[in-house]
Structures are given as structure tokens and as C-alpha cells.
């Protein structure tokens, strides 16, 4: 069974469409929605579902295969191999660093960012801890 995948493409964005597709697949793998060994939708199916050009999807899959994230299976499409988690995490941290630098530029204090971080991370853990933090904030 091949699970269908849908997400929104921002056509007007400066981020190329094939890159949006690549990033989304990495995220789906990281969150466990796609697991190693799973088939991803065929190029044509995904192109039809997302309403994008077939060659754009082909390019995204090709690059993911080159990065070792997907593996082409002869005549059958692509399966999920493994995510280079380190690389994916690094690129996300780079984004975070950019955002933090912007905050610093506009003069947002470290305390405020710290409390935000705690809030966001607290949200992910169990409820009691979050409530505790909520009171603290």
C-alpha cells in the first residue's frame, strides 16, 4: 500500500517548488509518518495530487535519492531509505539561528526568548510540566 501524501505548495514563494517538496518529505520521515521501506507516491500521482508539474516532482525525488533519503526501485517507484537526520537537523538549526539573530537585532531580550523556548518545549512534554511552566510564566 502506498499512502497518499498531500501538502500545500506555495507557488508564489521564493523557495523553489522542488525544494518545498523535498523538505516536506524529510519532515514526514522525521515525524514517522513515512517509515523506511515505505513506498512514496508515484511521481505522477504526487504531481496530480499537488497539481504541480511532473518534472518538478521527478526532480525532488531524484535529489532525495541522491541524498540517500529515497531509493529508486526498478520499475516500482521510490521507497524511503533513511533520513540523514543530522543534516536535516543542522539545516533546521541554521534557520533557528537566523531567527534568533533577527530577534537580537530588534532588541528582544534573551529572557523573553528563553521563556518562549520553555513554553514551546513544555507543550510537547506531558501536561503537568506544562502547567507548572505556565504558572511560572
Amino acid at each position, binding site marked *: 500500500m502506498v499512502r497518499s501524501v498531500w501538502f500545500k505548495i506555495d*507557488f*508564489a*514563494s*521564493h*523557495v*523553489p*517548488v*522542488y*525544494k518545498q517538496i523535498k523538505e516536506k518529505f524529510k519532515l514526514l520521515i522525521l515525524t514517522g509518518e513515512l517509515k523506511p521501506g515505505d513506498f512514496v507516491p508515484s511521481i*505522477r500521482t504526487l*504531481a*496530480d495530487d499537488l*497539481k*504541480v*508539474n*511532473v*518534472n*518538478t516532482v521527478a*526532480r525532488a525525488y531524484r535529489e532525495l535519492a541522491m541524498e540517500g533519503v529515497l531509493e529508486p526501485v526498478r520499475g516500482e517507484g521510490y521507497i524511503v531509505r533513511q533520513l540523514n537526520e543530522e543534516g536535516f537537523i543542522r539545516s533546521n538549526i541554521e534557520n533557528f539561528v537566523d531567527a534568533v539573530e533577527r530577534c537580537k537585532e530588534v532588541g528582544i531580550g534573551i529572557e523573553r526568548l528563553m521563556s518562549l523556548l520553555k513554553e514551546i518545549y513544555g507543550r510537547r512534554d506531558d501536561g503537568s510540566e506544562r502547567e507548572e511552566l505556565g504558572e511560572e510564566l
Partner: protein
Amino acid sequence: MVLSVKNLVKSYRNKRAVDGVSFDVGKGQIFSLLGPNGAGKTTTIKCVLGLRKADSGEITINGSYSYLPEQKEMYRYLTVEKMVHTNERISRSFDAKRALDLLEEFQIPLKEKIANLSHGMNTLAYLSLVLAEDVDLYLMDEPTWGLDPLMRNKVLDLIRTIPQNGKSVFYTSHILSEVEKIADIVAIMVKGRIAEMDNLDDLKEKYVACAVPKGQRLSGYLYRSTKDEDIYVVKRSEANGKIQPADFDMIFEALVKGVKA
């Protein structure tokens, strides 16, 4: 290569409508010629078809083609249905069933006279006839002209799927959002020349926006001017000053503004 154009030149009286244009359309490719009104898009497509005689240049078409003209005029006193059957008699590559399916999808009344169709319906009817031709290359001049947003999306999606059967598309448009979704290659035509031509995604990666103090020149295209700064759209390698990402909208606008006659 399905279509190859080399150094096409065409003048009307003293005006150079097309000034040395070259491009190739590959098999299974959607090629979009994008530009403001009067850029020379229609003249280019007409020269490709031989409807206008080029002053110079080389044009090669490998395979069969069908054509949606800018002026979507059909026999006004025929009904839509009669038009389909007339086409069936004239053209061997015409698939009447496919045409009728498309007309149904577009909700065009078959018994209606062409003369009574609205602009948008007329475009859709013509488009149904063109897409019902089983050919290697579809040449379309403003295929979404006069359509409401829903129908426009439907037409764009039909165009998007054409390469799935190995067919190719060459179409013109002056609307950005129409090429962003479906085109493989975009050529931006300004004042008779192709100012930029590339894969759409690569184009987005190629350019950035830079803000520099007024008067400082950058080798790129001036996009905006504020009181103290000039904002340029330049290639990444030429970037300078305060750098920001550029979306396709900005790239297009800057190129159109920045190309000298």
C-alpha cells in the same frame, strides 16, 4: 527537440517586433513565453507557425502540432456540436469523443451557436477542439484568456498533464501565476527579446533582491527606489548590500522594467 527557434527576427514597418529570439522546446516539456503586452509573444508564435513570414532566423518543428490563436474566432453561425463534427471531417488527428468530453467538462452547451457564447466559453470551446487533436506539440496563445479563476485552474491543470503522454506545450501568457504552477521552462520576453530563460525553480534560486544606498550601481535590474535606497534584483553572484530573497513576481517586474529598448 520538438521545436527549435534560432535567431528569429521580424519587423513590422520600422518596428522590430521580434529581435533575435532563440529557444528550444524539448519532448514532454511545458515551455512558457511570458511577457507584458506588446513584447512580441504573438508575433513569435505566428512566425513559428508560418502565419507571419520571418525576416530571418531558423525554425524547426519536429512532429505534428495544433494551435490555439490569440483571436479565438470560429464560425459564428455553427453550433458547438456542428463545429466538432466539421473538425472531425477536416483533421485526421482529431478525436471527436475527446472534444465532446472536454466540452462537457467545461459545461459548454453543444446546441448553442458559437455567436452566443461568452468570451470565456468561446475560449473553452476553442481549447476543447485544440486539445482534442492528438499531436506532438500544442501551441497556445493566451489559453486562459477571459476565463474565471475556477475555469482557469481547470485549463491550467489540463495543460499540466499534457506531458504525461510525452507531448509538449508552448504557450504564451502575460499572467505570472499561470506559469508558476505548471511551466518547466519560462522565457521572459521584453521588447522583442528574451531577457531571461530558465527552469522556473532555478530562476528563483538564481536571483536575489539587494538594497543599496541610492546612486550605488549594481549590475542587475532596478526593481524599486525609495528615498534613500535603490532595490535591485541581481544574480546571486553579483549580490551586495542588504540581501533578501526574490520571488518570481519581483524577478519578472524588475526584468520588464530594466530592459532597455
